[in-house]
Every structure is written in structure tokens, then in C-alpha cells.
């Protein structure tokens, strides 16, 4: 049975489990083995966006508006697509500057202005109070309803309860205690709360599972699936209209658009979202997965909202049960005790998650950006001289947490019952949307000034207060209702819900339009009318150009400081141990050790200390503290500009330098390639030399051997002597030929060969050469046939060279033919603007591998050891060089055993070719 004590015990057991998770995660973090350094945990922690408002309120809104609740989740889905640009930049800026909260971010951007930080804090606290009260309301009413089980009675019907018997008060106090345990156990210089993040991620999982469970139960257990729920709804005349609701209940498309924009801004600027997205982020790369996982989470938690809403409307008599409680009351009506308890725990998860993170974020702001700057300036307190302020810091934060929750409870008592959950949440959304111009403008627009941001915020917040908060108070009868109906002092034009006569819009759209006009207008106008101070100029450049990574803020500081003073400042706020650790780390980064080596208190060191300090007490307070501990000279605006100019010049220089070095690299690569080529040529030349000398030595050796025989033996027989002399003569001829060809080749390759180019008729060349060689053919018993056309076009070439080529091919052919059986066929043809000569023989043919190298120098095909063909190995190489010189080609086609065909082409003389009739 669901008695009070069962519910209370379960709740405490659940909170205990959360605390165990947080404790474990904190332990792991201390050991350096973080459990939250994962994109999945990061995405789940972002789901702190889904509060009790989502858990109970979405169904409530859907029950009256149909799809009207969806822009609240569609907006963030669209916004998160822009995170890759916007949030990456905010993340980087926050890491570099050790930002501790949204207020710190804005204050730091506009010249570390304590005033601006304070204003942001006040706006955030006032703006978020309704939202916190909403969570308290959700938990206390879900508890009250559950306790009535098996009856289903709305809390409103139970009548007002005195403060001390009000569950909401105890919920607030328990949550305050719990948040203090979570968020302020110790002071972290980086404001990381790993335990809290782990617990929040777990809570996100619980609330999703609880909601899906009740969704599946209602859709498939109570009804017969999605189709069944919608079909039954369509049959009810009251509900049928909601199936196409946009023109009807949900108001105009304008409110749809504004709701989308509003939630796009909320997902970035709600203090708790800023806390989990930016402050608690462990690694920028986690954004990658979060960009689609978080929208997926929102899609999943919304799938069953409409079936539950329609299911509830169908299930209960109209007006009997508050639609905000359908998630809980349907399982109760169906007597599902365990499911109802699970739903309660899910709602508790959603509410506690929101309250914990929100109050931690707000208490950090209140402490760092509101109270500390004031306390540090109050000379009477002499805080500057206190040795250790960590206790004070923790005390302020704990006090702030309790105070914020009690204020939330007060709002709940004051105005809580007048609104449905969704409307209360939207009031807070509209409040934090006021931060958008200052933050987004601040990271992209350098000329935005502190005064611009200040006036923008004040104006936007003022309009918000007038158009949203005042009406809320008036409806709860804390202000006269005539204010809403007739305007202040009866001035109709100033009616809070129809300012300047702008009527016909829903309250949120109306407030957003006017507050954004006021906010952006003041921000831009005041920024443009004034000019930034030196501090603002410096911070603007650090924020806007964060990805250019120019050495940080150290270059903007000038003054004198001492190491002990700096240590004192740090120790006062972080504790002595943490200060030692920070100094040691700084020294280690510069290859020194602290306290053994002397550290120089230069600009870089002072900047380091200030950044460390900013991580604990915010940028504005850190500025005040460091300024009090060191003697500094203020930089003028011109000096800041100068430094920035220098920096940008350095960027330009380094860019040019990079270009130059790229060019140099390219040139080096070219040189290297040329060098390789030269080396290759050198190697080829060496090869050539050694081959040539080898080729020269062979005939020389035989000449010398036979000469020596003749010289030593005068009585050699005549016949023998003749044979020897014959060999000597042949070898001498071969030597001469070789030397001639080497010289020839050298001339051709070096380009010093003389070419006597004239018009040449290849038919004549072929005929002449064949005639000249007829004696050779006869001697070797080779049969030659020539297939010559009537006429071919003339070519431009050197006649003697062409004869040389042809002679070479023919004598090669003869050489390889078997004596007596040889057949050579010479063919002449013309096509494609080229005259082609083919010389085919019926010799042994050439292997495919050899065909590739047969035109190389000194390549002789065949077994060179046993059957060395007479020749130099240069003939074909030279022939190909000649043909190529005239623009032709030379190649060979052959199959081993079936002879070889050497062919070459020479282009037709151009003028003649054109003159020829077609």
C-alpha cells in the first residue's frame, strides 16, 4: 500500500542512492579517473533541461493545446545545431578565462565589471525563482496526490494548509540540505562538481525510463496503441478539434515561432544549462555526440506526451482531475501502485536535478558576482587582510542556497496556484532570454560596450518584470487587478498585457516582443553611442578572437608585484595547500620547481594568479583582489590598442612567414627532384662509359691477340696469316663503326648534330636503299619484297639520316635471318598525316620482355654469350632518336618464332599535306 511513510522512505532511499553515486564520482575524480569524462554522460547531464515541468507539465499543456508544448523542445533541437559555432566558442572562452558562471562570463567580457555581474545575478535569481517554485510545487502536489491513494483528490480541493504543515516547505529544506551536500562540500578552483554531474546524468536516465514506462502503460495497457487513443479522441467532439490545433487552441503561428525562439535562447542561458554545458564540460569534443544525443533524448521523452494527454482527457470526467497530474493519476486510477511510485520517483528526479544544478549555479553567482565584490570593497570588514577566506566563501554559498530555495518557496505560496506549470516555466525562460544579446553580441561584436550591455539588460528585464511578473502577482491578488484591466493609474496605453495597445497576442509573445526590442535596442544604441574603455577593449579582443589564441591576457598588464603577496592572495581564497599546488604547477610549466627556485613575479605570473583566483571567486572579484595585492599601472586605451595592433601585426607577419616558408619548401622540393635527376643522369653516364669501354676492349683484345701471334711467329702459313689479317681488319672496322656511332649519339643527344632538313620522298629513299643493299641480300641468300604505293607525300627530314635508319633496320633484319631461307618485306604506307615504313623479317623474333628494351643503348637481343650478333647495340637507339627528332615514332611488333616487324613513321610535310586535293 502507498502509505505516507512508504513514499517518504522510498524518496529518501532514492536521494541516498543519488548521493552515493555523487560520492563515488567525486572519489574517482580525486583519483584522476573521472567517470563523467564521456560524451554520453555529458549528453545525459544536458537533459537537466527536462524538469518536473516537462515530466508533468507537458501533458498538462498538451491536454489543452495539443502540440502547443512542442516548440519548447523543437527550439533546443534547432539551437543545438548552431552550437558547433556558438557553444564551441563559449566553451573555449570559458576554459581560457576560467569562467565560473553566466554572470561571470558577461562581467568578464565587458571589462570584468562587478556592476554588470551583479545585475546579471539579480536578474537570474529573480527570473529563476518562479521556475524553482514550480519544482517545489510539482514535488509537493505529486506527493499529496499519491498519499491519497486509492482516492484521487486534487491538492487544491484539500484547502490551504498552514506553512508548517506544508509539504513544499519540507521539500525545499530537504533539497537545500541535499544541494549543500552536493555542491559546496569543498571549494574547487575550477568549479567542477563531478559528483553532481554523475548524479544528474543518472537522474536523467531515471526520469526518462519512468516517463516511458507510464507512456507505454497508458498507450498499450489502458488503450490499444497510438491509433486507438487518437481514434477515440477523434470520436469526442471536444477533443477532435485538438487534432488539428494550430489555428484554434494554440493561438497563432506567431506564438509558435516566439515559443521556438524563446526555448532556443533558454537552452543556452538558463543558469543550470550554462552550468552543465559550459562550466562542467570536461572536453570540447563531447559536443559532437551531444549535438544529436540530447535532441534524441528530448524526442524520446515527448513521444508519449500526446497519448497520455488524450488518455487522461478520455479517462476522467472534465474538470475532475488537473491535466498536469495525468502522468500520476492514470496509473493510480488503474490501481498500478508500483508504476505510480515509479512515476513519483521520476518526477522527483526531474525536480531535484533541476533544483540542485540551478541553485548551485545561482549560489555561485550570488557569492562570486554579487556579494564578494561588495564585501571586498567594504574596507571596514578588512577582508583583504584575512589569512583564509575559504570558510567565508563556502558559508556564503550555503547561505545562498538556503535563501534561494526559501525564496522559491515564498513565490510558491504567493503566486503558485494561479498558473499552470507551463506558464510559470515560460516566465523564467523569458527572463533568461534577456542575457542573449549581451552574450551572443559579446562573443562576435567587439564594439559592444559595458554600458550597452548594462542598459540592454536593465531595459529588457524591466519590460519582462512589467509584462510578465507584475501580472502574475496581480492575478494572485497581491496587486490590484485593475492594473491589468485598466493600466496603471488608468492609463490604458500602459496595460501590462497590451503594452502600447499591442493586443491579440498571448502573454509570452507579447512580453518577448517588447523586451527584446528594448534589450537589443538599448544594447546596440548605447554601444554605438559610446566607446569601449581600455579594459573593455582588451576583454573584447580576448573573447571575440579566442580561436586566434594570442598568448592570453598577460600582455596587457604592467606593474610590480611580489611572489609572497601573490601567494597570500591565492591562499586566502583557495586555501594554502591549493595555492602551493597552483604555484608548483606554474613553476613546472616553466621548467622550474617551487619553492626551491625563485619565481619572477612578472606579468605572466600575475595573470596566472588572477585566472586561478577567477576560477574560485569570479573575474570581477579576482580583479579587485589582485589589484589590491600588487602595484599596477593602468594602461590607457591607446596602449591597449597598440598592444592589440602589435598582436594583429604579429599575426600578419607570421602569416607571411608561413607563406614564405611554404614557398621555400616548394623550391626545396623542386631542387631535390632536380638533384635526383642529375644523379640519375650521372649514373647513366657512368654506365654508358663503362659499357662503351667494355665494347671497345673486345675488338681491341682480338686485334692485339692476332697481331701478337703474327709478330711472334713470322713463319705462319700464308693462308693462316690471311685469315688472321682478315679478322684484324673486321675488328678494326667494327671499332671504327662503334666510335663513329658513339660520336654520333653524343652529338644527337647533346643537340649538336647537324641536320640537313629538306623535302624527302620516302619512296625514293626505300627504293635507293634496297638497291644499294642488293649485293648484301644476294650474298646472304635473303629474298626481299617491297610493297610500295604509287606515291606518298613528301616529308621534311634529313635524307642521309633517313637512309641511315633504313640501312640499320635492313641490316638488322638480314643479320637475324637464317642464311638462304631469309625473307624480308618492306612496306610503305601513308595515313593520319604520317608516312609509315615497316620492315618485317622471318627471323627468330623477339621476346616480349626484350621488345621493351631493344631500343635502349647497348641492348643486344639474344644470348650474348654464345651467339653474339655482330653490331654495336647503338644502331636502334640512334635510329629511334633520329625518327623522334623529325616528330615520328619507332616501335617493334614481334612474336617469338614468327619474325619481327620494325616500323617507324615520319609526319607528312605540312604545306604539301594541305595543298593536296581532298
Amino acid at each position, binding site marked *: 500500500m502507498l502509505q505516507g511513510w512508504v513514499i517518504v522512505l522510498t524518496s529518501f532511499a532514492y536521494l541516498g542512492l543519488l548521493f552515493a553515486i555523487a560520492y563515488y564520482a567525486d572519489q574517482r575524480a580525486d583519483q584522476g579517473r573521472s567517470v563523467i569524462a564521456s560524451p554520453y554522460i555529458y549528453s545525459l547531464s544536458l537533459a537537466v533541461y527536462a524538469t518536473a515541468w516537462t515530466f508533468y507539465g507537458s501533458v498538462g499543456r498538451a491536454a489543452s493545446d*495539443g*502540440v502547443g508544448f*512542442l*516548440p519548447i523542445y*523543437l527550439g533546443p*533541437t*534547432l*539551437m*543545438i*545545431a*548552431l552550437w*558547433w*559555432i556558438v557553444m564551441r566558442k563559449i566553451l573555449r572562452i570559458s576554459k581560457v578565462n576560467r569562467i565560473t558562471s553566466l554572470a561571470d562570463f558577461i562581467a568578464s567580457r565587458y571589462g570584468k565589471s562587478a556592476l554588470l555581474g551583479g545585475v546579471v545575478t539579480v536578474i537570474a535569481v529573480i527570473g529563476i525563482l518562479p521556475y524553482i517554485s514550480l519544482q517545489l510545487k510539482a514535488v509537493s502536489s505529486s506527493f499529496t496526490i499519491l498519499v491519497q491513494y486509492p482516492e484521487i483528490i486534487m491538492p487544491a480541493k484539500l484547502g490551504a494548509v498552514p506553512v508548517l504543515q506544508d509539504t513544499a516547505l519540507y521539500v525545499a529544506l530537504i533539497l537545500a540540505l541535499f544541494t549543500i551536500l552536493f555542491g559546496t562540500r569543498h571549494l574547487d578552483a575550477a568549479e567542477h562538481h563531478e559528483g553532481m554531474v554523475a548524479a544528474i546524468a543518472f537522474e536523467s536516465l531515471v526520469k526518462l525510463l519512468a516517463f516511458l514506462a507510464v507512456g507505454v502503460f497508458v498507450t498499450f495497457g489502458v488503450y490499444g*496503441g*497510438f*491509433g*486507438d487513443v*487518437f*481514434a477515440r479522441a*477523434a470520436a469526442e467532439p471536444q477533443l477532435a478539434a485538438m*487534432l*488539428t*490545433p*494550430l*489555428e484554434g487552441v494554440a493561438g497563432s*503561428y506567431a506564438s*509558435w*515561432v516566439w515559443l*521556438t525562439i524563446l526555448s532556443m535562447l533558454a537552452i543556452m542561458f538558463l543558469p543550470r544549462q550554462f552550468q552543465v554545458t559550459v562550466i562542467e564540460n570536461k572536453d570540447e*569534443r563531447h559536443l*559532437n*555526440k551531444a*549535438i*544529436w544525443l540530447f*535532441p*534524441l533524448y528530448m*524526442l524520446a521523452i515527448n*513521444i508519449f506526451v*500526446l497519448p497520455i494527454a488524450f488518455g487522461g482527457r478520455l479517462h476522467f470526467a472534465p474538470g475532475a482531475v488537473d491535466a498536469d497530474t495525468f502522468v500520476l493519476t492514470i496509473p493510480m486510477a488503474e490501481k498500478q501502485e508500483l508504476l505510480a511510485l515509479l512515476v513519483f520517483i521520476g518526477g522527483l528526479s526531474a525536480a531535484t536535478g533541476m533544483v540542485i544544478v540551478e541553485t548551485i549555479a545561482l549560489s555561485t553567482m550570488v557569492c562570486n558576482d554579487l556579494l564578494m565584490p561588495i564585501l571586498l570593497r567594504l574596507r571596514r570588514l578588512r577582508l583583504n587582510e584575512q589569512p583564509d577566506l575559504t570558510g567565508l566563501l563556502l558559508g556564503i554559498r550555503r547561505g545562498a542556497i538556503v535563501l534561494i530555495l526559501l525564496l522559491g518557496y515564498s513565490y510558491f505560496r504567493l503566486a503558485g496556484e494561479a498558473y499552470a506549470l507551463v506558464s510559470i516555466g515560460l516566465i523564467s525562460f523569458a527572463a533568461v532570454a534577456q542575457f542573449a544579446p549581451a552574450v551572443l553580441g559579446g562573443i562576435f561584436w567587439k564594439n559592444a560596450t559595458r554600458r550597452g550591455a548594462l542598459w540592454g539588460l536593465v531595459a529588457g528585464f524591466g519590460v519582462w518584470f512589467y509584462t510578465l511578473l507584475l501580472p502574475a502577482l496581480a492575478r494572485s491578488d497581491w496587486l490590484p487587478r485593475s492594473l491589468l484591466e485598466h493600466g496603471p493609474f488608468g492609463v490604458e496605453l500602459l496595460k501590462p498585457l497590451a503594452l502600447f495597445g499591442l493586443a491579440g497576442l498571448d502573454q509570452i509573445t507579447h512580453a518577448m516582443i517588447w523586451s527584446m526590442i528594448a534589450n537589443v535596442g538599448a544594447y546596440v544604441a548605447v554601444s554605438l553611442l559610446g566607446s569601449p574603455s581600455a579594459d573593455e577593449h582588451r576583454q573584447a579582443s580576448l573573447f571575440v578572437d579566442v580561436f586566434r589564441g594570442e598568448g592570453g591576457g598577460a600582455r596587457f598588464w604592467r606593474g610590480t608585484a611580489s611572489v609572497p603577496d601573490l601567494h597570500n592572495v591565492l591562499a586566502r581564497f583557495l586555501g594554502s595547500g591549493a595555492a602551493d599546488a597552483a604555484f608548483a604547477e606554474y613553476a613546472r610549466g616553466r621548467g622550474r620547481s617551487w619553492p626551491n627556485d625563485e619565481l619572477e613575479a612578472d606579468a605572466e605570473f600575475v595573470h596566472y594568479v588572477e585566472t586561478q583566483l577567477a576560477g574560485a571567486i569570479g573575474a570581477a572579484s579576482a580583479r579587485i583582489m589582485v589589484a589590491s595585492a600588487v602595484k599596477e599601472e593602468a594602461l590607457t586605451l591607446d596602449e591597449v590598442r597598440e598592444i592589440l595592433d602589435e598582436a594583429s601585426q604579429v599575426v600578419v607577419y607570421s602569416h607571411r612567414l608561413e607563406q614564405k616558408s611554404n614557398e621555400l619548401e616548394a623550391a626545396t622540393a623542386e631542387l631535390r627532384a632536380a638533384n635526383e635527376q642529375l644523379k640519375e643522369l650521372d649514373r647513366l653516364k657512368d654506365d654508358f662509359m663503362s659499357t662503351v669501354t667494355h665494347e671497345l676492349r673486345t675488338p681491341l683484345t682480338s686485334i692485339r691477340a692476332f697481331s701478337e701471334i703474327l709478330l711472334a711467329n713470322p713463319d705462319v702459313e700464308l693462308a693462316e696469316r690471311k685469315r688472321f689479317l682478315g679478322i684484324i681488319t673486321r675488328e678494326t672496322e667494327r671499332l671504327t663503326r662503334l666510335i663513329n656511332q658513339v660520336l654520333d649519339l653524343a652529338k644527337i643527344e647533346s643537340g649538336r648534330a647537324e641536320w640537313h632538313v629538306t623535302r624527302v620522298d620516302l619512296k625514293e629513299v626505300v627504293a635507293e636503299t634496297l638497291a644499294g643493299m642488293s649485293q648484301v641480300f644476294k650474298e646472304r641468300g635473303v629474298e626481299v619484297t617491297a610493297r610500295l604505293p604509287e606515291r606518298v607525300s613528301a616529308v621534311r627530314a634529313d635524307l642521309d639520316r633517313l637512309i641511315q635508319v633504313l640501312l640499320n633496320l635492313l641490316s638488322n633484319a638480314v643479320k637475324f635471318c637464317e642464311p638462304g631461307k631469309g625473307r624480308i618485306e618492306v612496306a610503305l604506307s601513308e595515313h593520319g598525316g604520317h608516312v609509315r615504313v615497316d620492315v618485317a623479317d622471318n627471323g627468330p623474333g623477339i621476346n616480349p620482355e626484350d621488345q621493351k628494351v631493344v631500343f635502349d643503348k647497348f641492348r643486344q637481343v639474344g644470348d650474348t654469350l654464345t651467339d653474339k650478333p655482330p653490331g654495336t647495340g647503338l644502331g636502334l637507339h640512334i635510329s629511334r632518336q633520329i625518327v623522334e627528332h623529325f616528330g615520328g615514332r619507332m616501335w617493334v611488333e614481334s612474336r617469338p618464332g614468327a619474325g619481327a616487324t620494325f616500323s617507324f613513321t615520319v609526319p607528312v610535310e605540312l604545306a604539301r599535306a594541305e595543298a593536296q586535293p581532298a
Partner: protein
Amino acid sequence: MDRIETKAQRLVALCMLGFLLFNYPILALFNQAGAVLGIPVLYAYIFAGWALVIALMALVVERGGS
């Protein structure tokens, strides 16, 4: 740097696509009676479009690594 730029531009395009899909006038085209697989046209359209945008974002972000 190039890949980061491309990714950023694709995501901006997706944001604009989403804004187009979930606003007047495209949204109004689906604001009518009738049902797809038993689910009212408007609801089916919004949830399908939503899932599509998320799938495309996952594709853009996950393709090409971190």
C-alpha cells in the same frame, strides 16, 4: 580547419531546414484532419520531421570524426 568549417556550415543549414519545416507555412500544410497509421497527420509530420533532423545532425557530426 576546413573540416570544422564545413561541419559548421552544414549544421547551420540543418538549423535553417528545421526552422522551415516546423514553422508557417510548411507546418500549416499538415495542419489538417486525417491520420497516418492511426496518428493524426500533424503529429506524425512533426515527429517524423524531428527524427529526420536529428538523424541528419548525427550524420553530419559523426561523419568525418571529431
